[in-house]
């Protein structure tokens, strides 16, 4: 076994130029893969983090009725008491309640459909950092009647400005249209353009009174101290609320669009890796085939003196794998350093940011790659190398020692 490894390793260096070319191309392939995966992984992590931090929270609670029909009147039973008990849970960093409804916003000359989000200013800030995303004006905690915060895009669309009045119209629980004027306190920005156009924030307290259901809420959102405890916390909460008309969901269930992006990115990662490895596999097969054909006579003598087929096979598989691993490890080391550097300097993606920001991505990202991914790439390269070595190895086994030895080289 050791001897076979030793022979395999030394055989690689019989034709250093050829081996180095293979190693180099493998290194470049792996390096590129590492870099691409790091960027896409970071985009993914970034979009998740933003989705969770700015919008969905880790855990969401709704009434069963609201999950079926997103109507104003489908409120969470005993929301205020429930909110307090959630806020007091040791795993919870912050929690808030919201009252959500569809409605229309109108300025002097323009109008637009919006989702009206009635929020608790202090709790919302603690949970989803709404205040930190203000670009202009003031937060909902201003001492003024009916403040509203709208997205910058929406403000452009309505041709209005901070301090100006807008009218919100929506249907209350008694199916009557309610129209009330609000004054724009501030504007916010969101990574997802759609959110900037369609979400408006008002105080829940005022909205619930206008809706005829003072103090009620139809969405509770919690942010955990440690996201790794998500599963246990969710099942705990489900257990506690069992039998009640309340649906507890983690962010994956509450935001299937985010889960879809995750899946898509993962699939893209897999496809990129497979394409790169496939291209490399052809190079490996070609090189090893040349090596085997060159050593026909030598292989014939090895088989003549008693090296059995399994050992001949293993020797060629070892040689291929070592050759590939050497390249892969080099590429990975180089990739690791590149990712480290890119993480430090940041990578500007503004070239594609129009497309990306729609999905909730930032322009400058700091790529990072988990150690696990390096391990996966290593394993993938080994599997590729072993598979790529099969054809040359089978060709070697097919040779007839007496003919191979007679062959004049």
């Amino acid at each position, binding site marked *: 076994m050791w*001897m076979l490894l030793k022979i395999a390793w030394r055989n690689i*260096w*019989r034709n250093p130029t050829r081996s180095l070319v293979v190693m180099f191309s493998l290194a470049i392939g792996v390096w590129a893969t590492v870099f691409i995966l790091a960027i896409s992984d970071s985009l993914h992590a970034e979009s998740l983090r933003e989705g969770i931090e700015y919008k969905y929270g880790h855990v969401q609670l709704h009434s069963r009725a609201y999950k079926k029909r997103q109507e104003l009147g489908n409120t969470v039973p005993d929301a205020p008491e429930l909110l307090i008990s959630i806020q007091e849970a040791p795993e919870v960093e912050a929690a808030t309640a919201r009252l959500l409804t569809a409605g229309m916003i109108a300025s002097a000359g323009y109008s637009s459909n919006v989702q009206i989000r009635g929020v608790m200013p202090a709790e919302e800030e603690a949970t989803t950092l709404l205040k930190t995303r203000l670009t202009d004006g003031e937060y909902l905690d201003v001492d003024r009647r009916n403040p509203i915060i709208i997205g910058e895009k929406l403000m452009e669309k309505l041709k209005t400005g901070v301090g100006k009045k807008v009218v919100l119209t929506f249907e209350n629980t008694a199916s009557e249209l309610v129209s009330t004027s609000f004054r724009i306190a501030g504007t916010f920005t969101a990574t997802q353009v759609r959110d900037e156009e369609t979400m408006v924030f008002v105080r829940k307290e005022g909205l619930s009174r206008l809706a005829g259901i003072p103090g009620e809420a139809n969405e509770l959102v919690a942010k955990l101290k440690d996201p790794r405890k998500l599963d246990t916390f969710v099942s705990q909460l489900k257990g506690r609320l069992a039998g009640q008309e309340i649906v507890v969901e983690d962010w994956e269930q509450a935001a299937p669009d985010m889960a879809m992006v995750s899946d898509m990115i993962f699939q893209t990662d897999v496809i990129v890796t497979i394409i790169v490895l496939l291209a490399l596999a052809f190079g490996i097969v070609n090189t090893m085939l040349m090596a085997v054909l060159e050593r026909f006579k030598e292989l014939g003598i090895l088989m*003549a*003196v*008693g090296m059995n*087929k399994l050992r001949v096979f293993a020797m060629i598989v070892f040689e291929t794998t070592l050759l590939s691993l050497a390249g892969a490890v080099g590429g990975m080391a180089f990739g690791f350093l590149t990712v480290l550097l890119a993480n430090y300097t940041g990578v500007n993606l503004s070239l594609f940011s129009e497309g990306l920001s729609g999905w909730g991505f930032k322009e400058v990202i700091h790529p990072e790659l988990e150690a696990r991914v390096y391990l996966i790439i290593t394993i993938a390269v080994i599997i590729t190398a072993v598979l790529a070595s099969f054809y040359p190895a089978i060709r070697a086994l097919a040779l007839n*020692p*007496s003919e191979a*030895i007679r062959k004049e080289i």
Partner: protein
Amino acid sequence: MKVIETRNLSKIYNPDKVPVHALNGVNLAIERGEFTAIVGPSGSGKTTLLNIIGGLDNPTSGSVVVEGTEIAKLEGNALINFRLHNIGFVFQAYNLIPVLTAKENVEFVMLLQTRPKGEREARVIALLEAVGLSDKTDKRPSELSGGQQQRVAVARALASKPKFVLADEPTANLDSISAENLLDIMLKLNQEENMTFIFSTHDARVIRRARRVVTLEDGRIKKDLVQNEVSINF
């Protein structure tokens, strides 16, 4: 005691297209401890005969029995394994694994036989000494002369403790001094270890060293002589 016996051995290459009758009914018995040269002009069937005796090729008809085993009946790994444990090979050239040192080349067959480390090391040293290469143990084949390479090959052939050694024109690529030197070593091992050697050659000086000379012509045994006069230069 007979180590090898061939019965009515025939070999036809390309039986369908242009048949070449390389061997035509060869009956040959080799006793333990013999030092036999197979001689004859080029194309007379020497290589074919040695390859069939060594289990590297199959006869078209007839049989080869090595100490009771009919080797044409072995196949695949069983045959490879039989060669590993019973036959030592020395070829005309390219015998050695280029990436292994002299020592490693000799040790290699013993590793294939999974012999214990202590035994392997002792035997490598003894054999390299016997072929006069104690000072070249860590040299790769490319750093050795042709004669030295063939001596390593002889050491390797003996390392597996085979029943006999087959050497197909072992001196063909050597100058006459190296050739005689190689024959001296083979003869010494033949006498000291009672190792059976069968080698092919068409070099008169080599033929002189053989105890028994089997002459092939057109795939038939033409003469089979035992020489009493053997000159040995130790």
